[in-house]
């Protein structure tokens, strides 16, 4: 397992810890306060310390590029669905013309978290699949 895969596993493990933390806090503090459990994902900031001396070769770089693209696509999708979903809920069910202020932060964080999670999962998947170099 190389450094990129270890970083990806760290991303997936911390997301799992976030979800567990959220589910544990939810009954006690409610949905908005419990969302603070997603702060655990900040541990991923230490991912840069993993394998600093390892030099990625062309396959590692190709996989990283493809995974970043997959992460960006998933993030954009989550962000747009989050924005449109919020509008739908506000106008269809609440009959208001104001968006709850906490929703904006939540949607932005959703986009960021989906990006990093999707990128991590894509890296783990691509290392097990057939990959082509960019100029193959």
């Amino acid at each position, binding site marked *: 397992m*190389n450094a990129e895969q270890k970083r990806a596993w760290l991303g997936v493990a911390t997301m799992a810890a976030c979800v567990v933390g959220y589910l544990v806090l939810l009954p006690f503090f409610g949905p908005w306060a419990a969302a603070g459990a997603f702060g655990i994902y900040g541990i991923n900031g230490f991912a840069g310390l993993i394998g600093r001396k390892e030099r990625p*070769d*062309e*396959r*590692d770089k190709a996989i990283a590029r493809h995974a970043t693209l997959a992460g960006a696509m998933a993030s954009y999708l989550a962000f747009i669905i989050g924005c449109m979903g919020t509008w739908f809920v506000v106008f269809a069910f609440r009959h208001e013309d104001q968006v709850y202020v906490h929703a904006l932060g939540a949607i932005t964080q959703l986009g960021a978290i989906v990006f990093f999670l999707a990128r991590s999962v894509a890296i783990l998947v691509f290392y*097990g*699949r*057939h*990959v*082509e*170099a*960019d*100029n*193959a």
Partner: protein
Amino acid sequence: MPEITNCIRRLRFDHDEMTQEELAQRVSVTRQTIIALEAGKYTPSLALAFRIARTFNKRVEDVFQYEVPIRE
């Protein structure tokens, strides 16, 4: 299925049973990449294909074969 196959594994054995690690060092990639190449899970760049072929003193087309996919 990959369209480009290779005979790196056989060539390694023909060259004094060269290890994957040794070949990886010679062509400046990781051993994991050599494993992926031999398993047909990675199609290399042209530059890497040339480096591998020259390591074995072969032409690129002697190491890598392009198989036209059969359409039904």
